[in-house]
């Protein structure tokens, strides 16, 4: 098993998650508080990659960054190769993972009752402090789920990368593509190593997500029990 595809995969996964997290968190907070057609339109756009076949997104990226387009020419003039390159698959992977990062965080913010927002304001604290001390801790497990989902989804991504990045060893050849290559070459022993690695990492991530959900579930049970007790007394 080669280590280069593993390193590239890790680089892309960590960077995608990092970039998305920094951009998504403030945007999610704003979306959760706002209403109107603009919010609806933005939500539609950010949810789209969830249903869109990866090859479709890849195809439009090819068209968008092609030789003949203004943006493609502009990027090439400053020596950034937007297609069939490491930068290309990073950009595509950020786009493709927007819903996996944003949707759990938005739903976390939206689940916070209006009364909590009001009670925090009535403590005389600035909106920034309220966000930092009250709201962010309440969406902590949603943020963790979003990070794990984005990370795992990037690690396993195949379609978009195949379309936009191709299969350039040392540049765009990530684990899932290396696995595909080995199978094509009937190198099943090598393929087993890549597949096994992805399987184990995915299982660990899933156990982590399940434990987070379980924590939330058992906490809500304790809450229900205590409120029924107080009604009885």
């Amino acid at each position, binding site marked *: 098993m080669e280590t280069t595809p593993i390193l590239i995969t890790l680089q892309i996964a960590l960077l995608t998650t990092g970039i998305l997290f920094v951009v998504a968190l403030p945007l999610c907070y704003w979306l959760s508080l706002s209403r109107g057609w603009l919010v609806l339109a933005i939500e539609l756009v950010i949810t789209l990659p969830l249903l869109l076949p990866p090859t479709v997104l890849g195809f439009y990226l090819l068209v968008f960054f092609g030789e003949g387009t203004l943006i493609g020419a502009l990027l090439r003039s400053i020596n950034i190769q937007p297609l069939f390159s490491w930068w290309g698959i990073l950009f595509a992977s950020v786009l493709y993972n927007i819903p996996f990062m944003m949707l759990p965080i938005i739903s976390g913010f939206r689940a916070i*009752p209006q*009364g*909590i927002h*009001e*009670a*925090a*304001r*009535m*403590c*005389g*604290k*600035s*909106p920034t402090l309220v966000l930092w*001390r*009250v709201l962010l*801790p*309440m969406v*902590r497990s949603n943020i963790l789920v979003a990070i794990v989902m984005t990370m795992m989804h990037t690690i396993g991504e195949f379609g978009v990368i195949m379309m936009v990045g191709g299969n350039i060893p040392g540049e765009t050849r990530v684990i899932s593509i290396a696995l595909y290559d080995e199978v094509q070459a009937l190198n099943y022993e090598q393929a087993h190593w890549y597949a096994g690695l992805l399987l184990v990492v995915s299982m660990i991530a899933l156990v982590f997500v399940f434990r987070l959900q379980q924590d939330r579930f058992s*906490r809500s049970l*304790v*809450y229900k029990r*205590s*409120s029924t*007790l*107080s*009604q009885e*007394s």
Partner: protein
Amino acid sequence: MIHVFCDAPAVWSERFRIRGECSATTPAIIGLTGISGSGKTTLLRIIAGLERQDDAVPTHVEFSGALWQHTKVQGALDAFPEALQQSTSTFVQPEQRPVGMVFQQPELFPTMTVLENIRFALPKVFPEILHIQSEQNFLDEIIEITHIREFLRRKSHQLSGGQQKRVALARGLARCADLLLLDEPTIGLDHKSGEHLIESVISYCRKHKRTMIVATHDGHLLHDIDTEWRIAHGRVKVR
């Protein structure tokens, strides 16, 4: 002096309006009474600044010489009594009004312990006029009044409804504000401890010269108030 005027739709219905002008010399303990659904919560939220501030709702809130809110109404010159008319609209954000509020639902912050909930409401600096010796002394007094010492380290989901209510009250007091608004503070507590709690909060407010408005539909709880604001059939009246 506290002076409130409003002509506002109720929280629960656009068609039902609460109209009236009420005032009191501060510091004072004010009882806000009326049957359930008469608009007590709406009035408290207006004073706190939590109600909407659109042009259709003439509102005037003034406390201790500071104008917190004055919403002018487009095209309706006589919406306000003459003494209250202002040339411009004003709105002070809720977090900038010196108001401690205890909601009907406790609304505790679930990720914090009881003590952290209370500490969150503490002001950065205590007003000098209050002569507070130390933060600990201040907290101790609040904790004694509300009887929450034995569960300071617990989180809200480990408390009963009544306990949560008392923590919310402690958090409202910790804000150290000149005006304290209580919305049905005794719901969820048994009659005796509810009465006891209200009595100790009233004497705390008197001692520290705070103004308190307590909304309740249970008139028996209010033995010791200075003024009563009564809401009936959408009208607020001072009694």
